[in-house]
């Protein structure tokens, strides 16, 4: 049985990733927490944000690694995340900000059947390619 991915991406978000990749090269995501623009996924040039032992790799979306701090993951792990796009003027250093759009997370809880068959996460530094 195929493993259930922890993070997905919408077609709209894929097109933005392509656009940003053309402009900046390879990309990565790190899920933020906390105030203001927290709880939003941040998109950086690959390697710009230094992943540490405190992070986990949840998977890949459209060729980009998607990380989260492992402490935050403890509270998020029962939900599947989908990276989407919304219009709006976000703050933060995420690369799509100048385009007047923002990556956004949509979530759903995994079903009981899915929970037994989820893609394993890797500790951040080991997960780095």
């Amino acid at each position: 049985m195929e493993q259930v991915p922890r993070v997905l991406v919408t077609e709209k978000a894929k097109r933005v990733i392509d656009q940003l990749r053309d402009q900046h090269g390879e990309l990565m995501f790190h899920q933020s927490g906390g105030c203001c623009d927290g709880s939003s996924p941040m998109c950086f040039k690959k390697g710009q944000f230094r992943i540490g032992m405190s992070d986990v790799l949840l998977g890949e979306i459209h060729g980009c690694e998607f990380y989260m701090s492992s402490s935050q993951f403890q509270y998020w792990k029962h939900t599947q995340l989908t990276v989407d796009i919304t219009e709006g003027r976000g703050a933060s250093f995420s690369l799509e900000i100048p385009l007047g759009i923002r990556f956004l997370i949509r979530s759903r809880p995994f079903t009981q059947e899915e929970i037994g068959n989820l893609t394993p996460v890797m500790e951040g530094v080991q997960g780095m390619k």
Partner: protein
Amino acid sequence: MSVTLSGYKKPNTEGSFVHYKSQYDNFIGGEWVAPADGEYFDNPSPVDGKVFTRVPRSKKKDIDLAVQKAHEAKEKWGNTPVAKRSKILLKMAERIEQNRQMLALSETWDNGKPIRESMAADIPLAADHFRYFAGVIRGEESGVSEIDPNTVSMHIKEPIGVVGQIIPWNFPLLMAVWKMAPALAAGNCVVLKPAEQTPVTVLLFAELVQDLLPPGTLNIVNGFGPEAGQALATHPDIGKIAFTGETTTGRLIMQFASENIKPVTLELGGKSPNVFTESVMAKDDSFLEKAVEGFTMFALNQGEVCTCPSRALIQESIYDEFMERALKRVEKIRMGDPLDPQTMIGAQASRDQYAKIMSYLDIGKQEKAKVLAGGEAYHNEQYPDGFYIQPTVFEGNNKMRIFQEEIFGPVVSVTRFKDEKELLEIANDTLYGLGAGLWTRDVHQAYSIARKIEAGRVWVNCYHQYPAHAAFGGYKQSGIGRETHKMMLDHYQQTKNLLISYDQTPTGLF
């Protein structure tokens, strides 16, 4: 002029307190300077979703210029007698007060908050903050000690020099003042980057005070995070960086700072518990009314407060009775035109923030939290394109995502606790530790429980008060350092130790 029966007049209409220019420049070296690349970006109001002015899309070259001008000014400002620096800050406070309706209206238009709040909180607190730091800098003294009869140690506080400050969008002018007032009081020159969503009021403020400050002392550069914010955070000639925002950017700023070995202060938000113990219901009196109002504080500033009491913990024995009253109070929260002084909550600050809050209402329902109030967007007939959300009360448990993440919207998640042990388990089961509220009539609880809640600010029998001389800052992942209070001066100063020998005899070592 300007305050009509129905409220304040919209900016850029006849008789309004505010008339924006069609475009603003950066404030660098005491002058209004166009961005090097000549690019600007549109600034919409969340009240009606429409663009009302444009601000610079600055990049590295603009930040470089601002840092250079700040360095040119730093010696003069650092050597300005404290009495004179203090007097300038007092005059800045006065200018804010003299123009409070203009600044308040602009803040409401740029951020979406109701005029009632910008008039009662943002603007008067900003003025008071300047006065507070104008006061404490006069009283500051350093220590001198005699190490032995011939050796004296003297500590002198020196400004860092040039500091970078990145401001959030929830209290745009007030948060800028929280950072700039202590930095300027301590003798530093500032390069400040406002948030992309709320770039304008601080520029109106700069217009009001530009004749007071020596050129280059305060520099304001607008732009996007990845372009201007990052250029500021990575600048090798910045002596310190202060940031309010979220954890990933906070980590990134620390990573940048590590490259140049610079100090940082970070305020990264929270998921603050607001705890109601059973003694609250012991009497039906004014204190109970105050506690019920304390519950409703989650809606203040549309929930866009780092210390939003977004988790309510209510003792099981009073749960039903307390919630009945609390929900009645929530029903009375008045939404509507942010320019109407009767309106209690306004628009969310931006379209993406609105979308994010809606995504949390969605996951809350999917996780089977019970919606006790709200749960939907609010259709504001007057402003169909603005970003409005109903005050929302969820009932659930602390493991749900809506209990663990800062939604930054008018959303509270409510749960029960049995006893003090469970109270503390739930209150502290969070990644963050910025604020907390504790409501009790029991003096022992008021102290002992408050001490055990892992948060930098515990409001006891009150909430959402932000006086200048109470320290504000986070435990755990909520950040590093404090804001407000005179201890903030330490974050903007170096300590010079002079170790002086009055002994004329050689030591005899060589």
